[in-house]
Structure formats: structure tokens, C-alpha cells
């Protein structure tokens, strides 16, 4: 299921004196199977953009196609028939089920008495006809998917578990509805290096086994270089460039212009080339190390 965005515009406070552009003519295609990174500094429009993907923000102009779903600007009609409204609503629910969204600091949205109840919230909303037994199976699957022990954690309160566990539970709460596309806004914010590493492993495992497309919003270029297959750079609501990390980070001037820093590997590659060592690396840490080692060997 590809995501095709065409000419998306978005203004905050549209029609008033305080109107500001959050997105300007954004056209972007994200293919199925990608581990896609969206990068940009704070206020570059990346969060606004991802909220378009499951219609949390209604489109002002332009069009988004996700599989069978077509999103475009619809002027709100005052007199819509009840049937029409109902159909719209169920379509919206289908879309939101297909595109799972994990917000920044998702642990702040936990609310239920037990972990089990919180994770099953999405299942009960999206599939109200599911039987209790099936809900339990789906919940168990989701909790195990994020690497937690179901029987140990299911009856605990989501407010008494550790920070890293909370985040996993919150992600499980989105995974429970079995989305095909998963969008995560700064999933590593506020985690320690160990938690961060574990989360990346988890995301790669999900990408391999259950989720077709993963979209990550980040401003840590090292993460993007190491994990994404393709990325897009936003700056002040404008989509500056789309490409593989290798293509993006070779253009150091563009990255700096957008108020970002290139990953350490790209910085080192650049410095080395000034000293006569030219590496052809894709800027992942592993590849960089291998290429550098080879270069050193060759020089000897």
C-alpha cells in the first residue's frame, strides 16, 4: 500500500490575520515496504504532515492516496444525511486502523486501570464485534510483539511500570489494531541509550514481521542514517529533498541550510576526504567502519 501525497498545503489559523503556513505544496510518495524517515528542525511541518496521513488534520488543499483511501478537501456540508455521515465515519475508522499513529511521548496517553485494558482499547474501538477471547489473544500478541511478558504485566497499572515499559505498552496499544503502516513521532525522545537501542531493534523486528511500512519522524540524523531506507527533509513547511540517506547526507550544505547536522559518519567522511581518504559509504555506522578499515589497509 503506497502513500501518495499531492500538493498538500496547510495553514494554521487559516483565514485570519495570524495565518501561517505549516506546509507548502508538499508532494511525496512513500512506497510500501520502506522504513521512511522524515527529518527537519522543530516547527518545520513534519508533525503536521504525518497527522495528515490518518486524517487527524483535515486536508485544506491537495490530495493524499493511501491504498483505497482518498483524502482531499471536503467543504463541511451542514445538511449531510445520517447515512452519509455514518459511511464517512466508518471509512475514517478503517483508515485510522490501517495507519497506526504513535505520538511523541506516547506514554502520556495511557489511561486505563490495567495494561491489558489499555492495550485492548484500540481493538474494542476498531472492531467492536470481536469476542472477549479474541480480544485477549490480540492483546496478548500485541504485548508480546513489543517484547514484554504478557502474564507478568497484564494486570499492572500502566502508571506503576517503568518509563521504557510504558512506552512499549503505548506502542502495543497502537499495534493491537494490526495497522499496515506505522507512523512514529520521535519514538526515541527521552529514552536512555539502552532503551533507544532496544526500541530500534523492536522497530526492525516489526518491520520484518508485521508492519509493511514504517514512517519515523526524527531529528537525530544518526538514527536516520543507520535505520532508514529513504528519507525526506522538511524546512519551514517545504519539502526540500527526498532520497536515500546516502543521497541526502552527501549534500552537507543542504542539511546545514535546513538547520540540521549531518550524522557523525557523514561528517567524518567529509573530513577524511579533505585529507585524501575518499570513502564510498552509505553513512551507516557498520558500512562506514568497514570502508574505513579497508581504506587504511589499502594505504599500508
Amino acid at each position, binding site marked *: 500500500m503506497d502513500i501518495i501525497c499531492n500538493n498538500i498545503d496547510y495553514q494554521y489559523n487559516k483565514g485570519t490575520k495570524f495565518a501561517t503556513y505549516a506546509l507548502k505544496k508538499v508532494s511525496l510518495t512513500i512506497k510500501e515496504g520502506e522504513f521512511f524517515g522524515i527529518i527537519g528542525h522543530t516547527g518545520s511541518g513534519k508533525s503536521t504532515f504525518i497527522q495528515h496521513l490518518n486524517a487527524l488534520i483535515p486536508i485544506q488543499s491537495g490530495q493524499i492516496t493511501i491504498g483505497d483511501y482518498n483524502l482531499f478537501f471536503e467543504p463541511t456540508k451542514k445538511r449531510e444525511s445520517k447515512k452519509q455521515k455514518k459511511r464517512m*465515519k466508518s471509512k475514517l475508522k478503517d483508515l485510522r486502523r490501517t495507519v497506526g499513529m504513535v505520538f511523541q511521548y506516547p506514554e502520556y*496517553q495511557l489511561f486505563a486501570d490495567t495494561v491489558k485494558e489499555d492495550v485492548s482499547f484500540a481493538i474494542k474501538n476498531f472492531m467492536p464485534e470481536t469476542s472477549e477471547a479474541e480480544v485477549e489473544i490480540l492483546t496478548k500478541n500485541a504485548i508480546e510483539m513489543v517484547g514484554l511478558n504478557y502474564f507478568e504485566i497484564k494486570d499492572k497499572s500502566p502508571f506503576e511500570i517503568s518509563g521504557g515499559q510504558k512506552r512499549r505498552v503505548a506502542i502495543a496499544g497502537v499495534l493491537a489494531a494490526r495497522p499496515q503502516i506505522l507512523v512514529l513521532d520521535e519514538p526515541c525522545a527521552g529514552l536512555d541509550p539502552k532503551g533507544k537501542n532496544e526500541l530500534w531493534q523492536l522497530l526492525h523486528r516489526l518491520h520484518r514481521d508485521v508492519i509493511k511500512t514504517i514512517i519515523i519522524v526524527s531529528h537525530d540524523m544518526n538514527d536516520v542514517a543507520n535505520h532508514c531506507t529513504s528519507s525526506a527533509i522538511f524546512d519551514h513547511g517545504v519539502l526540500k529533498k527526498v532520497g536515500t540517506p546516502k543521497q541526502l547526507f552527501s549534500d552537507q550544505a543542504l542539511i546545514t541550510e535546513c538547520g540540521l547536522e549531518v550524522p557523525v559518519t557523514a561528517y567524518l567522511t567529509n573530513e577524511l576526504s579533505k585529507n585524501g581518504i575518499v570513502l564510498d559509504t552509505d553513512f551507516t555506522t557498520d558500512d562506514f567502519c568497514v570502508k574505513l578499515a579497508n581504506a587504511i589497509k589499502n594505504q599500508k
Partner: protein
Amino acid sequence: MLKDAVFGQYYPVKSPVHRMDSFTKIVLLIIYIVMVFVAKNFWGFLAVGVFLLVTILASKVPFKSVARSIKAVYFIIAFTFIINIFFHKEEGAKVLWDVWLLRNITDKSLIYAVFMALRFTLLMFGSSLLTLTSSPVELTNGIEVLLKPLTIFKIPVHILALMMSIALRFIPTLMEETERIINAQKARGADFESGNIFKRAKALLPVLIPLLTSALRRAEELGDAMDARCFSSTTKRTKFKKLTFSWRDLIGLLFTLATLSAVILCNNFLVAII
């Protein structure tokens, strides 16, 4: 959106009214409210209306923003209008209609009801103009000065003012937080719009609980931050921005008092035309 629901949002432009001292503005608003209730006839209301119009023009706030304040209370206005039109009794009133549902409607009750609705509208416009032209911080400063006399009765006015400014400061933050939590739960398929009132109230739980925990967390953090800066409520504090009475305030005061006397004059010496 949610942000629009906040009563009388500050409208940031530069104007003489914005630069007036907030304490003076509050006092003038009180005089204005008195004026609205003192006005008894058409000419009195005309004077108040002209006063309001001049103030709005001077404040550079678009009329649309001022008029939006009425959205919150139009039901109350309609309600008082209808109640008054049916139940207001006065000597020597002439019955206009007396058919079916429209009973007891007299010329006097009609006028009275119109005046009552006018009063509410003018009241809302005037008070929203205060909040539109003074930022929450200025307002709290003004209220603090206004309540100063209460310190004689050992009421800790400065602490009340601090509480108020903290509360006001956190309204937009919590609004943003609410919007984010609502979006997060919507992404998990929560539906806040369908079902009967009980179902809807229950659907709000997944929003209210995280909101409450985050509010408590913020309160704790703020308390720690204040402790870290050695805040103490018992020591005497100085002000960063002192309120001063300037020529703008004097003009405002004179203008208000002039209108008040005009309204009283209209009440007592002019024969009502309608």
C-alpha cells in the same frame, strides 16, 4: 477548535487602549457595567453604545472578534428576552397581541425585553473588550492592585494573584495537551461524537485521566522549579512591571465619567421618546 473556546482571547495589536493601565481598565469596566444597568431609555442606551463603539475603534480590535464573545451566552440572552416579554408587568401597559401562545405581550414588556437583551449584549461586548486588550498577566496585576485593600483583613492577595496567573498561564498549555491527547486517542479509534450523552461522557475518560495526571506532573515540576529559585510566599516581593497612571488612563476615565453622566442625564431629564 478548542482554542477558540477560551473566553476573550488576547488580541495582540498596539493601540492606546492596549497600553492603558490594566487596573484603570478594570475600574472603568465596573463603571461601564453600572452605566449599562443605570440606562433606562433609548437615549441612555445610545450613549452607552456610542461609548462602546468609540472604545472598540480606539482599541483597533476588529468588531468581529468582539462580537464573538456573544456566542457563549446567546442562549441566556434569548431566554431572558422570552421570559421578560411574557412576564414583565407594568401599570398602564397596552396589550399588543393576545392570541393563542402570544399572551400578555404588551408594548412595555416588549421594550423591557429588548432593553434587557441589549444590556446583556453590551455587557458581554464591554467585558470581552477588557480581556481582548489586556494580556492575562496584565489582568492579574490589575486585579492584584484592585484587591490590595483586602490585605487589611489578612487575606494573602499576592498569593491569590500568583495562583491566578499560574492558572491563566497553564490554560493554553493544557489546551494544547488536550488536543494532543484527543488526537492520540482518535488515532486509536476513540469516537467522541456519537452515542447519547452518557456514552459521550464515558468516551471522554481516556482524555481526562491522562490530562489530570499530566496536570499533576506539571504542578509538581513547577513547584520544584519555584523551590529551586528560592521562591517564598512570605517575603515581600517587588514588581517587574509597575502599573502607572498615565494621560491615556486619564482620558479614558474622563470619557467614561462623561458617558455615565450623560446616561444619568438621559434618564432624569429627557422624556423617553419610545
